[in-house]
Protein backbone atom coordinates (compact mmCIF):
# COMPACT_ATOMS: atom_id res chain seq x y z
CA UNK A 1 0.00 0.00 0.00
CA UNK A 2 1.81 3.10 -1.21
CA UNK A 3 2.74 5.90 1.13
CA UNK A 4 0.46 8.16 -0.85
CA UNK A 5 -2.62 6.01 -0.18
CA UNK A 6 -1.74 5.97 3.51
CA UNK A 7 -1.49 9.74 3.65
CA UNK A 8 -4.70 10.24 1.70
CA UNK A 9 -6.60 7.80 3.90
CA UNK A 10 -5.21 9.50 6.98
CA UNK A 11 -6.35 12.88 5.60
CA UNK A 12 -9.83 11.53 4.76
CA UNK A 13 -10.16 10.15 8.24
CA UNK A 14 -8.97 13.31 9.92
CA UNK A 15 -11.17 15.86 8.13
CA UNK A 16 -14.66 14.52 7.33
CA UNK A 17 -16.79 17.49 6.30
CA UNK A 18 -20.45 17.01 7.02
CA UNK A 19 -23.64 18.27 5.40
CA UNK A 20 -26.96 17.80 7.18
CA UNK A 21 -30.21 17.13 5.32
CA UNK A 22 -33.48 16.73 7.18
CA UNK A 23 -35.69 14.51 5.06
CA UNK A 24 -38.93 14.97 7.01
CA UNK A 25 -37.68 14.30 10.53
CA UNK A 26 -39.39 15.52 13.69
CA UNK A 27 -36.13 17.53 14.19
CA UNK A 28 -35.26 15.86 17.48
CA UNK A 29 -32.31 14.24 15.67
CA UNK A 30 -31.48 17.55 13.96
CA UNK A 31 -31.06 19.40 17.24
CA UNK A 32 -28.90 16.51 18.48
CA UNK A 33 -26.75 16.76 15.33
CA UNK A 34 -26.27 20.50 15.87
CA UNK A 35 -25.69 19.69 19.54
CA UNK A 36 -22.55 17.77 18.61
CA UNK A 37 -21.04 21.06 17.36
CA UNK A 38 -21.53 22.81 20.68
CA UNK A 39 -18.99 22.98 23.52
CA UNK A 40 -20.05 19.90 25.47
CA UNK A 41 -19.55 17.41 22.62
CA UNK A 42 -17.49 19.57 20.19
CA UNK A 43 -17.15 17.46 17.09
CA UNK A 44 -14.54 19.85 15.66
CA UNK A 45 -11.93 17.94 17.73
CA UNK A 46 -12.21 15.24 15.07
CA UNK A 47 -11.96 17.80 12.30
CA UNK A 48 -15.66 17.58 11.48
CA UNK A 49 -17.10 20.80 10.06
CA UNK A 50 -20.71 21.49 9.11
CA UNK A 51 -20.68 22.68 5.51
CA UNK A 52 -23.41 24.45 3.57
CA UNK A 53 -23.02 23.09 0.05
CA UNK A 54 -22.99 19.44 -1.07
CA UNK A 55 -19.91 20.25 -3.15
CA UNK A 56 -17.74 20.76 -0.07
CA UNK A 57 -19.08 17.83 1.94
CA UNK A 58 -17.86 14.23 2.32
CA UNK A 59 -20.46 12.84 4.71
CA UNK A 60 -24.22 13.33 4.22
CA UNK A 61 -26.02 13.18 7.59
CA UNK A 62 -29.66 12.34 6.95
CA UNK A 63 -32.30 12.45 9.64
CA UNK A 64 -35.94 11.51 9.31
CA UNK A 65 -38.00 9.19 7.11
CA UNK A 66 -37.97 10.16 3.46
CA UNK A 67 -41.27 11.88 2.70
CA UNK A 68 -42.53 11.57 -0.86
CA UNK A 69 -41.83 15.20 -1.68
CA UNK A 70 -38.32 15.34 -0.30
CA UNK A 71 -37.24 12.20 -2.14
CA UNK A 72 -36.13 13.88 -5.39
CA UNK A 73 -34.20 16.54 -3.47
CA UNK A 74 -32.39 13.85 -1.44
CA UNK A 75 -31.25 12.10 -4.62
CA UNK A 76 -30.13 15.42 -6.13
CA UNK A 77 -28.13 16.42 -3.03
CA UNK A 78 -26.56 12.96 -2.98
CA UNK A 79 -25.60 13.24 -6.65
CA UNK A 80 -24.09 16.68 -6.22
CA UNK A 81 -21.58 15.45 -3.67
CA UNK A 82 -18.11 14.62 -5.05
CA UNK A 83 -16.67 11.09 -4.63
CA UNK A 84 -15.67 9.51 -2.15
CA UNK A 85 -18.88 10.25 -0.26
CA UNK A 86 -20.58 8.55 2.65
CA UNK A 87 -24.13 8.63 3.95
CA UNK A 88 -24.91 8.32 7.65
CA UNK A 89 -28.51 7.64 8.66
CA UNK A 90 -29.11 9.34 12.03
CA UNK A 91 -32.03 8.21 14.16
CA UNK A 92 -34.42 5.27 13.92
CA UNK A 93 -36.61 7.05 11.35
CA UNK A 94 -33.85 7.31 8.76
CA UNK A 95 -32.49 3.84 9.57
CA UNK A 96 -35.77 2.02 9.08
CA UNK A 97 -38.66 4.49 8.73
CA UNK A 98 -39.18 4.16 12.48
CA UNK A 99 -42.50 5.08 14.05
CA UNK A 100 -43.74 6.61 10.76
CA UNK A 101 -43.52 3.31 8.92
CA UNK A 102 -46.95 2.86 7.34
CA UNK A 103 -47.80 6.54 6.95
CA UNK A 104 -48.75 7.02 3.33
CA UNK A 105 -46.57 10.02 2.57
CA UNK A 106 -43.23 8.43 3.40
CA UNK A 107 -41.13 5.79 1.69
CA UNK A 108 -41.11 2.86 4.10
CA UNK A 109 -37.80 1.47 5.18
CA UNK A 110 -35.86 4.68 5.68
CA UNK A 111 -33.00 6.24 3.70
CA UNK A 112 -31.38 3.11 2.34
CA UNK A 113 -34.32 2.55 0.03
CA UNK A 114 -33.30 5.71 -1.80
CA UNK A 115 -29.53 6.10 -1.53
CA UNK A 116 -26.76 3.68 -0.39
CA UNK A 117 -26.02 4.19 3.32
CA UNK A 118 -22.63 3.61 4.94
CA UNK A 119 -23.44 3.90 8.65
CA UNK A 120 -26.61 3.65 10.74
CA UNK A 121 -27.06 5.42 14.10
CA UNK A 122 -30.18 4.19 15.88
CA UNK A 123 -31.95 6.06 18.68
CA UNK A 124 -35.01 8.24 18.92
CA UNK A 125 -33.39 10.76 19.01
CA UNK A 126 -29.86 9.49 18.53
CA UNK A 127 -27.84 10.90 21.44
CA UNK A 128 -24.97 13.24 20.51
CA UNK A 129 -22.51 10.67 21.92
CA UNK A 130 -24.04 8.05 19.62
CA UNK A 131 -23.68 10.37 16.61
CA UNK A 132 -20.03 11.00 17.51
CA UNK A 133 -19.48 7.28 17.90
CA UNK A 134 -21.17 6.63 14.54
CA UNK A 135 -19.01 9.16 12.66
CA UNK A 136 -15.81 7.84 14.27
CA UNK A 137 -16.80 4.24 13.47
CA UNK A 138 -17.56 5.26 9.87
CA UNK A 139 -14.02 6.67 9.58
CA UNK A 140 -12.60 3.55 11.21
CA UNK A 141 -14.37 1.38 8.66
CA UNK A 142 -12.80 3.52 5.92
CA UNK A 143 -9.36 2.73 7.37
CA UNK A 144 -10.14 -0.99 7.50
CA UNK A 145 -11.52 -0.98 3.94
CA UNK A 146 -8.23 0.51 2.64
CA UNK A 147 -6.09 -2.01 4.54
CA UNK A 148 -7.96 -5.12 3.58
CA UNK A 149 -7.86 -4.53 -0.20
CA UNK A 150 -4.18 -3.75 -0.13
CA UNK A 151 -3.41 -4.59 -3.69
CA UNK A 152 -6.12 -2.67 -5.48
CA UNK A 153 -6.39 1.10 -5.32
CA UNK A 154 -9.44 2.12 -3.26
CA UNK A 155 -10.36 5.28 -5.18
CA UNK A 156 -9.01 7.08 -8.23
CA UNK A 157 -6.40 9.61 -7.11
CA UNK A 158 -6.76 12.32 -9.68
CA UNK A 159 -4.18 14.69 -8.38
CA UNK A 160 -0.81 13.21 -9.08
Amino acid at each position, binding site marked *: MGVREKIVTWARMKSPWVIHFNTGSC*NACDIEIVDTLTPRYDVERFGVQLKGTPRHADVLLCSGPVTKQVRDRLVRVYEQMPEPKFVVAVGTCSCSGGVFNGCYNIHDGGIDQIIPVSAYIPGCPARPEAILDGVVKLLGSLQAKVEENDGTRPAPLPFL
Partner: protein
Amino acid sequence: MAKVTIPFGPQHPALKEPERFDLTILGERIVRLNARLGYNHRGIEKACEQRSYISALYLIERICGICSHSHATAFVQCVEEIAGLEVPARARYIRTLIAELERMHSHLLWLGVAGHEIGFDTLLMYTWRDREVVMDLLAALTGNRVNYGINTIGGVRRDVSPEQCAEILRGIDTLEERTKYYMQLATEDAMLAERLVAVGSLCTEDAARLGAVGPVARASNLNQDVRRDDPYAAYGELDFKVITDTHCDVYGRVLVRVGELMESCRIICQVLSNLPEGPIAVKAPRKIPAGEALTRYEAPRGEDVHYVRGNGTERPERVKVRAPTLANVQAVSKMLENNYLADMPIVLAAIDPCFSCTDRAVVVREAGCVEQRMDWKALRLYGIEWYRKNRGIDCSKIKLRM
Protein backbone atom coordinates in the same frame (compact mmCIF):
# COMPACT_ATOMS: atom_id res chain seq x y z
CA MET B 1 -32.15 45.64 -12.20
CA ALA B 2 -33.38 42.19 -13.16
CA LYS B 3 -35.59 40.35 -10.71
CA VAL B 4 -33.96 37.11 -9.58
CA THR B 5 -35.87 34.24 -7.99
CA ILE B 6 -33.83 32.36 -5.41
CA PRO B 7 -34.85 28.92 -4.18
CA PHE B 8 -34.47 28.88 -0.40
CA GLY B 9 -34.56 25.26 0.71
CA PRO B 10 -35.56 22.54 0.98
CA GLN B 11 -31.91 21.86 1.75
CA HIS B 12 -30.36 25.06 3.09
CA PRO B 13 -27.92 25.67 5.92
CA ALA B 14 -30.23 28.28 7.42
CA LEU B 15 -33.20 25.95 7.63
CA LYS B 16 -33.19 23.09 10.06
CA GLU B 17 -36.16 21.55 8.24
CA PRO B 18 -37.13 21.00 4.61
CA GLU B 19 -39.46 23.69 3.39
CA ARG B 20 -39.24 25.69 0.24
CA PHE B 21 -39.42 29.48 -0.13
CA ASP B 22 -39.03 31.10 -3.55
CA LEU B 23 -37.68 34.59 -2.93
CA THR B 24 -37.92 37.13 -5.71
CA ILE B 25 -35.30 39.79 -5.02
CA LEU B 26 -34.44 43.06 -6.71
CA GLY B 27 -30.72 43.59 -6.07
CA GLU B 28 -30.63 42.83 -2.33
CA ARG B 29 -34.24 43.70 -1.45
CA ILE B 30 -36.88 41.00 -1.15
CA VAL B 31 -39.84 41.70 -3.40
CA ARG B 32 -42.01 38.62 -3.12
CA LEU B 33 -42.01 35.32 -1.31
CA ASN B 34 -44.10 32.27 -1.91
CA ALA B 35 -43.81 29.33 0.39
CA ARG B 36 -44.21 25.70 -0.56
CA LEU B 37 -44.61 23.65 2.58
CA GLY B 38 -45.48 20.02 2.89
CA TYR B 39 -42.01 18.53 2.73
CA ASN B 40 -42.28 17.38 6.30
CA HIS B 41 -45.72 15.93 5.80
CA ARG B 42 -45.74 12.36 7.16
CA GLY B 43 -49.35 11.48 7.81
CA ILE B 44 -49.65 11.38 11.59
CA GLU B 45 -53.28 12.36 12.04
CA LYS B 46 -54.72 9.48 10.09
CA ALA B 47 -52.05 7.13 11.43
CA CYS B 48 -53.43 7.96 14.88
CA GLU B 49 -56.82 6.73 13.78
CA GLN B 50 -55.36 3.28 13.27
CA ARG B 51 -53.70 3.16 16.68
CA SER B 52 -54.98 2.78 20.22
CA TYR B 53 -54.85 5.91 22.39
CA ILE B 54 -51.58 4.92 24.08
CA SER B 55 -49.69 4.19 20.84
CA ALA B 56 -51.29 7.29 19.27
CA LEU B 57 -49.80 9.25 22.19
CA TYR B 58 -46.38 7.72 21.32
CA LEU B 59 -46.81 8.94 17.73
CA ILE B 60 -48.16 12.40 18.71
CA GLU B 61 -45.00 12.99 20.74
CA ARG B 62 -42.93 12.50 17.58
CA ILE B 63 -44.69 15.32 15.72
CA CYS B 64 -41.96 17.72 16.78
CA GLY B 65 -38.78 16.96 18.68
CA ILE B 66 -38.43 20.30 20.44
CA CYS B 67 -42.04 20.68 21.68
CA SER B 68 -42.92 17.00 22.14
CA HIS B 69 -44.26 17.56 25.67
CA SER B 70 -46.61 20.28 24.34
CA HIS B 71 -48.27 18.00 21.83
CA ALA B 72 -48.37 15.07 24.27
CA THR B 73 -49.95 17.11 27.10
CA ALA B 74 -52.52 18.74 24.79
CA PHE B 75 -53.53 15.34 23.35
CA VAL B 76 -53.71 13.69 26.77
CA GLN B 77 -55.82 16.52 28.21
CA CYS B 78 -58.26 16.12 25.29
CA VAL B 79 -58.65 12.41 25.99
CA GLU B 80 -59.03 12.97 29.74
CA GLU B 81 -61.74 15.58 29.09
CA ILE B 82 -63.68 13.13 26.89
CA ALA B 83 -63.28 10.28 29.35
CA GLY B 84 -64.11 12.60 32.27
CA LEU B 85 -60.98 11.56 34.21
CA GLU B 86 -59.97 13.64 37.25
CA VAL B 87 -56.17 14.04 37.02
CA PRO B 88 -54.52 14.13 40.49
CA ALA B 89 -52.98 17.50 41.49
CA ARG B 90 -49.43 16.15 41.75
CA ALA B 91 -49.58 14.92 38.15
CA ARG B 92 -50.77 18.34 36.96
CA TYR B 93 -47.89 20.01 38.80
CA ILE B 94 -45.32 17.63 37.32
CA ARG B 95 -46.73 18.29 33.85
CA THR B 96 -46.33 22.03 34.40
CA LEU B 97 -42.76 21.49 35.64
CA ILE B 98 -41.78 19.55 32.51
CA ALA B 99 -43.62 22.09 30.31
CA GLU B 100 -41.62 25.00 31.73
CA LEU B 101 -38.33 23.06 31.50
CA GLU B 102 -39.16 22.38 27.85
CA ARG B 103 -39.91 26.07 27.31
CA MET B 104 -36.50 26.99 28.71
CA HIS B 105 -34.63 24.47 26.56
CA SER B 106 -36.59 25.56 23.49
CA HIS B 107 -35.98 29.28 24.05
CA LEU B 108 -32.26 28.75 24.75
CA LEU B 109 -32.07 26.64 21.59
CA TRP B 110 -33.80 29.39 19.61
CA LEU B 111 -31.49 32.09 20.98
CA GLY B 112 -28.52 30.07 19.74
CA VAL B 113 -30.04 29.45 16.31
CA ALA B 114 -30.88 33.17 15.98
CA GLY B 115 -27.25 33.99 16.77
CA HIS B 116 -26.11 31.45 14.17
CA GLU B 117 -28.41 32.95 11.52
CA ILE B 118 -26.81 36.39 11.83
CA GLY B 119 -23.32 34.95 11.88
CA PHE B 120 -22.79 35.29 15.63
CA ASP B 121 -21.82 31.66 16.36
CA THR B 122 -20.44 32.45 19.78
CA LEU B 123 -24.01 33.02 21.00
CA LEU B 124 -24.94 29.57 19.63
CA MET B 125 -22.06 27.96 21.52
CA TYR B 126 -22.79 29.78 24.79
CA THR B 127 -26.57 29.25 24.82
CA TRP B 128 -26.33 25.59 23.83
CA ARG B 129 -23.71 24.98 26.51
CA ASP B 130 -26.12 26.39 29.11
CA ARG B 131 -28.98 24.44 27.55
CA GLU B 132 -27.10 21.25 28.46
CA VAL B 133 -28.00 21.99 32.10
CA VAL B 134 -31.72 21.81 31.22
CA MET B 135 -31.19 18.71 29.09
CA ASP B 136 -29.48 16.93 31.98
CA LEU B 137 -32.37 17.86 34.29
CA LEU B 138 -34.90 16.53 31.78
CA ALA B 139 -32.88 13.36 31.23
CA ALA B 140 -32.75 12.81 35.02
CA LEU B 141 -36.48 13.44 35.41
CA THR B 142 -37.88 11.62 32.41
CA GLY B 143 -35.15 9.31 31.16
CA ASN B 144 -34.69 10.91 27.74
CA ARG B 145 -33.14 14.23 26.63
CA VAL B 146 -35.80 14.85 23.98
CA ASN B 147 -39.20 13.12 23.42
CA TYR B 148 -39.66 12.69 27.17
CA GLY B 149 -42.77 10.46 27.26
CA ILE B 150 -43.67 11.55 30.80
CA ASN B 151 -47.41 11.76 30.04
CA THR B 152 -49.88 8.92 30.10
CA ILE B 153 -53.67 9.09 29.90
CA GLY B 154 -54.82 9.94 33.41
CA GLY B 155 -51.58 11.33 34.80
CA VAL B 156 -47.81 11.09 34.70
CA ARG B 157 -45.54 8.10 34.39
CA ARG B 158 -42.71 9.08 36.76
CA ASP B 159 -42.61 10.81 40.12
CA VAL B 160 -40.20 13.59 41.15
CA SER B 161 -38.05 12.63 44.15
CA PRO B 162 -36.92 15.28 46.68
CA GLU B 163 -33.27 14.94 45.59
CA GLN B 164 -34.35 15.67 42.00
CA CYS B 165 -36.19 18.75 43.28
CA ALA B 166 -32.99 19.98 44.93
CA GLU B 167 -31.04 19.24 41.74
CA ILE B 168 -33.57 21.19 39.65
CA LEU B 169 -33.36 24.18 41.99
CA ARG B 170 -29.55 24.18 41.70
CA GLY B 171 -29.82 23.97 37.91
CA ILE B 172 -32.35 26.80 37.87
CA ASP B 173 -30.04 29.07 39.88
CA THR B 174 -27.21 28.73 37.35
CA LEU B 175 -29.66 29.22 34.49
CA GLU B 176 -31.21 32.30 36.08
CA GLU B 177 -27.83 33.97 36.39
CA ARG B 178 -26.96 33.00 32.77
CA THR B 179 -30.29 34.39 31.57
CA LYS B 180 -29.51 37.70 33.25
CA TYR B 181 -26.28 37.71 31.21
CA TYR B 182 -28.23 37.06 28.00
CA MET B 183 -30.77 39.76 28.86
CA GLN B 184 -27.91 42.22 29.36
CA LEU B 185 -26.27 40.98 26.12
CA ALA B 186 -29.53 41.32 24.16
CA THR B 187 -30.19 44.85 25.38
CA GLU B 188 -26.67 46.28 25.20
CA ASP B 189 -24.86 44.53 22.35
CA ALA B 190 -24.64 47.05 19.50
CA MET B 191 -23.92 44.47 16.78
CA LEU B 192 -26.93 42.37 17.79
CA ALA B 193 -29.19 45.42 17.88
CA GLU B 194 -27.95 46.64 14.51
CA ARG B 195 -28.85 43.33 12.82
CA LEU B 196 -32.18 42.86 14.60
CA VAL B 197 -33.81 46.26 15.07
CA ALA B 198 -36.47 47.14 12.47
CA VAL B 199 -36.02 43.75 10.80
CA GLY B 200 -39.05 41.60 10.00
CA SER B 201 -41.42 44.13 11.54
CA LEU B 202 -45.04 43.09 12.07
CA CYS B 203 -47.30 45.83 13.45
CA THR B 204 -49.99 45.01 16.00
CA GLU B 205 -52.93 45.16 13.57
CA ASP B 206 -51.17 42.86 11.10
CA ALA B 207 -50.23 40.45 13.89
CA ALA B 208 -53.88 40.24 14.97
CA ARG B 209 -55.19 40.07 11.40
CA LEU B 210 -52.72 37.39 10.25
CA GLY B 211 -53.30 35.36 13.40
CA ALA B 212 -49.78 35.43 14.82
CA VAL B 213 -49.43 33.49 18.08
CA GLY B 214 -47.01 33.12 20.97
CA PRO B 215 -43.83 35.23 21.29
CA VAL B 216 -44.30 36.63 17.75
CA ALA B 217 -47.69 38.11 18.78
CA ARG B 218 -46.50 39.18 22.22
CA ALA B 219 -43.58 41.02 20.60
CA SER B 220 -46.14 42.94 18.54
CA ASN B 221 -47.88 44.11 21.70
CA LEU B 222 -50.71 41.52 21.62
CA ASN B 223 -51.26 40.58 25.24
CA GLN B 224 -52.41 36.97 24.69
CA ASP B 225 -51.18 33.88 26.53
CA VAL B 226 -53.13 30.63 26.75
CA ARG B 227 -51.62 29.84 30.17
CA ARG B 228 -53.40 32.86 31.61
CA ASP B 229 -56.52 33.08 29.39
CA ASP B 230 -57.45 29.38 29.25
CA PRO B 231 -55.45 27.84 32.17
CA TYR B 232 -54.70 24.13 32.01
CA ALA B 233 -52.56 21.74 34.13
CA ALA B 234 -51.47 23.72 37.21
CA TYR B 235 -51.31 27.19 35.62
CA GLY B 236 -54.57 28.20 37.33
CA GLU B 237 -52.86 28.13 40.75
CA LEU B 238 -49.60 29.83 39.71
CA ASP B 239 -48.99 33.55 39.30
CA PHE B 240 -46.67 34.66 36.50
CA LYS B 241 -46.27 37.70 34.28
CA VAL B 242 -47.01 37.63 30.55
CA ILE B 243 -44.07 39.32 28.82
CA THR B 244 -45.06 41.62 25.99
CA ASP B 245 -42.98 44.09 24.00
CA THR B 246 -43.72 47.03 21.76
CA HIS B 247 -40.80 46.69 19.31
CA CYS B 248 -42.91 44.66 16.83
CA ASP B 249 -39.74 43.29 15.20
CA VAL B 250 -37.15 40.54 15.60
CA TYR B 251 -35.46 42.50 18.38
CA GLY B 252 -38.73 42.49 20.32
CA ARG B 253 -39.04 38.72 19.86
CA VAL B 254 -35.57 38.25 21.32
CA LEU B 255 -36.53 40.33 24.37
CA VAL B 256 -39.84 38.49 24.81
CA ARG B 257 -38.19 35.10 24.68
CA VAL B 258 -35.40 36.01 27.09
CA GLY B 259 -38.06 37.53 29.38
CA GLU B 260 -40.02 34.29 29.22
CA LEU B 261 -36.88 32.42 30.21
CA MET B 262 -36.77 34.46 33.42
CA GLU B 263 -40.50 33.82 33.96
CA SER B 264 -40.02 30.08 33.50
CA CYS B 265 -37.36 30.08 36.21
CA ARG B 266 -39.85 31.75 38.57
CA ILE B 267 -42.66 29.34 37.65
CA ILE B 268 -40.46 26.28 38.21
CA CYS B 269 -39.48 27.54 41.67
CA GLN B 270 -43.18 28.06 42.51
CA VAL B 271 -44.12 24.58 41.21
CA LEU B 272 -41.38 22.93 43.25
CA SER B 273 -42.15 24.87 46.41
CA ASN B 274 -45.84 23.86 46.55
CA LEU B 275 -45.72 20.42 44.88
CA PRO B 276 -48.77 18.63 46.39
CA GLU B 277 -48.54 15.07 47.73
CA GLY B 278 -50.70 12.27 46.39
CA PRO B 279 -50.89 9.77 43.53
CA ILE B 280 -49.37 10.67 40.17
CA ALA B 281 -51.87 8.91 37.91
CA VAL B 282 -55.39 7.55 37.85
CA LYS B 283 -56.48 4.31 36.07
CA ALA B 284 -57.73 5.11 32.55
CA PRO B 285 -60.26 2.88 30.76
CA ARG B 286 -59.08 1.25 27.53
CA LYS B 287 -62.25 2.27 25.66
CA ILE B 288 -62.77 6.05 25.71
CA PRO B 289 -66.51 6.95 25.51
CA ALA B 290 -67.87 8.85 22.50
CA GLY B 291 -67.34 12.60 22.63
CA GLU B 292 -65.09 15.39 21.43
CA ALA B 293 -62.81 17.91 23.08
CA LEU B 294 -60.59 20.79 22.14
CA THR B 295 -57.56 21.92 24.15
CA ARG B 296 -55.31 24.91 23.70
CA TYR B 297 -51.77 24.75 25.05
CA GLU B 298 -49.08 27.46 25.22
CA ALA B 299 -46.17 25.75 23.47
CA PRO B 300 -42.79 27.55 23.38
CA ARG B 301 -43.62 28.74 19.84
CA GLY B 302 -47.21 29.76 20.47
CA GLU B 303 -50.72 28.42 20.86
CA ASP B 304 -51.00 24.73 20.03
CA VAL B 305 -54.56 23.46 19.39
CA HIS B 306 -55.57 19.78 19.62
CA TYR B 307 -59.02 18.42 18.73
CA VAL B 308 -59.80 14.77 19.50
CA ARG B 309 -63.01 12.94 18.80
CA GLY B 310 -63.65 9.54 20.36
CA ASN B 311 -66.25 7.03 19.21
CA GLY B 312 -66.41 4.59 22.16
CA THR B 313 -63.81 2.19 20.75
CA GLU B 314 -60.19 2.19 21.93
CA ARG B 315 -59.16 4.12 18.79
CA PRO B 316 -59.64 7.87 18.28
CA GLU B 317 -61.97 8.68 15.41
CA ARG B 318 -60.28 11.97 14.52
CA VAL B 319 -57.16 13.76 15.77
CA LYS B 320 -56.55 17.31 14.56
CA VAL B 321 -53.33 19.16 15.45
CA ARG B 322 -52.85 22.85 14.66
CA ALA B 323 -49.23 23.72 15.44
CA PRO B 324 -48.19 27.28 16.27
CA THR B 325 -45.93 27.50 13.24
CA LEU B 326 -48.88 27.06 10.89
CA ALA B 327 -50.27 30.36 12.23
CA ASN B 328 -46.95 32.19 12.25
CA VAL B 329 -45.70 31.10 8.83
CA GLN B 330 -48.38 33.12 7.06
CA ALA B 331 -47.12 36.28 8.72
CA VAL B 332 -43.60 35.71 7.36
CA SER B 333 -44.36 37.09 3.89
CA LYS B 334 -45.79 40.22 5.56
CA MET B 335 -42.69 40.56 7.74
CA LEU B 336 -40.32 40.21 4.83
CA GLU B 337 -41.66 43.05 2.75
CA ASN B 338 -38.78 45.33 1.65
CA ASN B 339 -36.29 43.63 3.92
CA TYR B 340 -32.91 42.51 2.71
CA LEU B 341 -32.01 39.04 1.52
CA ALA B 342 -29.56 38.86 4.40
CA ASP B 343 -32.52 39.23 6.77
CA MET B 344 -34.42 36.25 5.37
CA PRO B 345 -32.77 33.61 7.62
CA ILE B 346 -33.16 35.65 10.81
CA VAL B 347 -36.77 36.68 10.09
CA LEU B 348 -37.73 33.11 9.31
CA ALA B 349 -35.87 31.90 12.39
CA ALA B 350 -37.58 34.58 14.48
CA ILE B 351 -40.92 32.80 14.32
CA ASP B 352 -38.97 29.76 15.55
CA PRO B 353 -40.48 27.63 12.79
CA CYS B 354 -41.14 23.99 13.46
CA PHE B 355 -42.32 22.57 10.19
CA SER B 356 -42.36 19.10 11.64
CA CYS B 357 -45.40 20.29 13.58
CA THR B 358 -46.99 21.98 10.65
CA ASP B 359 -47.17 19.16 8.09
CA ARG B 360 -48.69 16.05 9.54
CA ALA B 361 -51.72 14.28 8.16
CA VAL B 362 -52.73 10.96 7.05
CA VAL B 363 -53.04 7.34 6.14
CA VAL B 364 -52.25 3.68 6.55
CA ARG B 365 -50.73 1.68 3.78
CA GLU B 366 -51.54 -2.00 3.69
CA ALA B 367 -49.43 -4.41 1.68
CA GLY B 368 -51.15 -5.39 -1.54
CA CYS B 369 -50.03 -5.59 -5.11
CA VAL B 370 -51.50 -3.20 -7.65
CA GLU B 371 -50.48 -3.13 -11.31
CA GLN B 372 -47.36 -1.10 -11.82
CA ARG B 373 -47.99 2.32 -13.31
CA MET B 374 -44.81 4.37 -12.93
CA ASP B 375 -41.36 2.87 -12.93
CA TRP B 376 -38.26 4.67 -11.78
CA LYS B 377 -37.35 6.14 -15.16
CA ALA B 378 -40.86 7.39 -15.86
CA LEU B 379 -41.04 8.94 -12.40
CA ARG B 380 -37.68 10.64 -13.01
CA LEU B 381 -38.70 12.00 -16.41
CA TYR B 382 -41.96 13.20 -14.88
CA GLY B 383 -39.90 14.95 -12.19
CA ILE B 384 -37.62 16.62 -14.73
CA GLU B 385 -40.55 17.71 -16.86
CA TRP B 386 -42.38 19.01 -13.80
CA TYR B 387 -39.29 20.96 -12.78
CA ARG B 388 -38.83 22.49 -16.19
CA LYS B 389 -42.47 23.55 -16.28
CA ASN B 390 -42.87 24.81 -12.71
CA ARG B 391 -39.44 25.88 -11.62
CA GLY B 392 -37.67 26.55 -14.89
CA ILE B 393 -34.74 24.39 -13.76
CA ASP B 394 -33.55 21.87 -16.28
CA CYS B 395 -31.98 18.97 -14.41
CA SER B 396 -32.05 16.46 -17.22
CA LYS B 397 -28.31 16.94 -17.60
CA ILE B 398 -27.63 15.46 -14.15
CA LYS B 399 -26.08 12.17 -15.13
CA LEU B 400 -27.40 9.23 -13.12
CA ARG B 401 -24.82 6.46 -12.99
CA MET B 402 -27.13 3.47 -12.99
